[in-house]
């Protein structure tokens, strides 16, 4: 009898431990990750108010009507009426998309080259891709300010080399934003591509070559299709954060470089319009829901395959 009780006690304690392992991170994420989004949604339905906090409450108490719920879609209507917001959303998608394409074009040959290098070199090259990632993002973007300035290093070099007679206007333009984006996000493209290309069975390429396929055909028909998962993972890892980017357009872009992350930041800190900022965030989230869900699905799939 007592042994049965003891083992029951043991399984009970075991369950308790399992619960404990799941519950701590679960509750933390519920409180600090999920709830905040619900609050953003709630505030996006409120009116701005000059008060602390600067928005109307969801539940309103009054003598006549008792407790009532107050919501408004004015903020969303405002986003669609003022063409500034629409233009900004489109511009962000465009900037992120073109940057992603460039990252892919530059990153693919690099990842391929690393994956085909002999072993000691390969690890060193891989490490060299990772190092910039550990150096502050902010400082790496800042490094380009000195290069792209009108009296900066790039113009100095081009003038010295006699390629141009007049310094180019680079800093505070869209070009500078593109350069900053590609520079900052390139490692995010290279790493998943490398992870994929490294696993590629080289015998397939050799077989195709032996059977007389030209290098370009081997690449187009074998390497590229097989590396598609890496391409997709890399593109998502660049595209999704690039859309909401704030630092790069704020430091390298001009006043007319419209990006949604920057607009949200300014709406919040300069205009102090919390409800509109919340609505901007919700619409941005809508825009990203599809790619994010797709990214998660793929990640889970990959983990399952590993298992």
């Amino acid at each position: 009898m007592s042994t049965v009780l003891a083992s029951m006690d043991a399984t009970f304690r075991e369950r308790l431990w399992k619960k404990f392992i799941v519950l701590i991170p679960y509750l933390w994420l519920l409180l600090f990750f999920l709830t905040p989004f619900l609050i953003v949604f709630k505030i996006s339905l409120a009116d701005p108010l000059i008060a602390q906090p600067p928005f109307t409450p969801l539940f309103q108490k009054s003598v006549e009507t008792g407790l009532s719920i107050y919501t408004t879609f004015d903020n969303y209507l405002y986003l669609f009426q003022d063409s500034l917001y629409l233009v900004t959303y489109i511009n962000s998608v465009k900037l992120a998309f073109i940057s992603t394409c460039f990252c892919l074009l530059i990153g693919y040959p690099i990842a391929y080259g690393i994956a085909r290098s002999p072993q000691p070199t390969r690890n060193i090259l891989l490490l060299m891709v990772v190092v910039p990632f550990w150096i502050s993002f902010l400082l790496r973007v800042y490094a380009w300010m000195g290069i792209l300035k009108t009296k900066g290093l790039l113009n100095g070099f081009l003038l010295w080399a006699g390629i141009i007679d007049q310094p180019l206007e680079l800093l505070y333009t869209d070009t500078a934003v593109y350069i900053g984006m590609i520079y900052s996000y390139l490692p995010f493209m290279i790493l998943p591509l490398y992870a994929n290309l490294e696993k590629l069975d080289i015998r397939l390429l050799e077989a195709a070559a032996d059977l007389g396929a030209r290098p370009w055909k081997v690449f187009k028909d074998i390497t590229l299709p097989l590396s598609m998962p890496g391409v997709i993972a890399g593109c998502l890892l660049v595209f999704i954060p690039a859309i909401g980017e704030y630092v790069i357009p704020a430091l390298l872009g001009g006043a007319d470089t419209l990006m949604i992350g920057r607009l949200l930041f300014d709406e919040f800190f300069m205009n102090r319009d919390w409800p509109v900022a919340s609505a901007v965030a919700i619409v941005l989230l809508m825009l990203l829901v599809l790619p994010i869900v797709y990214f998660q699905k793929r990640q889970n799939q990959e983990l399952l395959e590993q298992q």
Partner: protein
Amino acid sequence: MNKRSKFIFSALCFGFAFLYVPILLVVIYSFNDSRLVTIWGGWSIRWYIELFNNDNILDAALLSFRIAAVSATFATIMGTLAGIALTRIRQFKGRLLFTGMIAAPLVMPEVITGLSLLLLFVSLQELIGWPGQRGINTITIAHITFSMAYVAVIIQSRLIDMDESIEEAALDLGAKPIRVLWDITLPIIFPAMISGWLLAFTLSLDDLIIASFVSGPGATTLPMLIFSKVRLGIAPDINALATILIVVVTIGVSIAGLVMHQQSKTKKA
């Protein structure tokens, strides 16, 4: 060399030049004597001296290091639990939501995370009078939240690679699950926990946007200070600061690389 390997070789050269020339230029120009940052005025270490006499920067750096150390530690604990939960506990209620909440912070734009956390803190303040003054506490909580997801992913992939039969053997021999976790699982994933901690530390040290949202008056982290300075243009003492950081990171990553190299060598032998 044939045409193809020539192309790949030049792509590698171009790629790494693109990645490293800006960093090298910052390092070189941090030793520039001239106040006009991009005009060379001879070698000097005056910006380093100025940097170490700047109390604002030192205070901000100290604050950032404290937040990074605390948040990385909690993120590692929480992320490890999450990683174990995801790989070793096959079924529990709301597993799908849990996996979603672990993966989403990895790609969530920082402006959204920052805004939503601030609004949470403001609402909590209204509701229960906590967290009071925003600052170190709120930044630390925010950093734990987004970096624990990164730790969880690292732990998860390590646990999937790990040979589960060792744990099963211990369980079969009558060890209690908690003992198996403590004596077998944790020692094996310990290196992954270290890399998770380092990643969380770096992410926290690097974060500008989320900290800007959730911070209050009086708590200025290093990235916030740097940003407010460089927004107005190039600052020579920031070059010096960047150089110190670059040197530290390069040494750290090189050591990690060497250790990994040694480990793979001994494994083969």
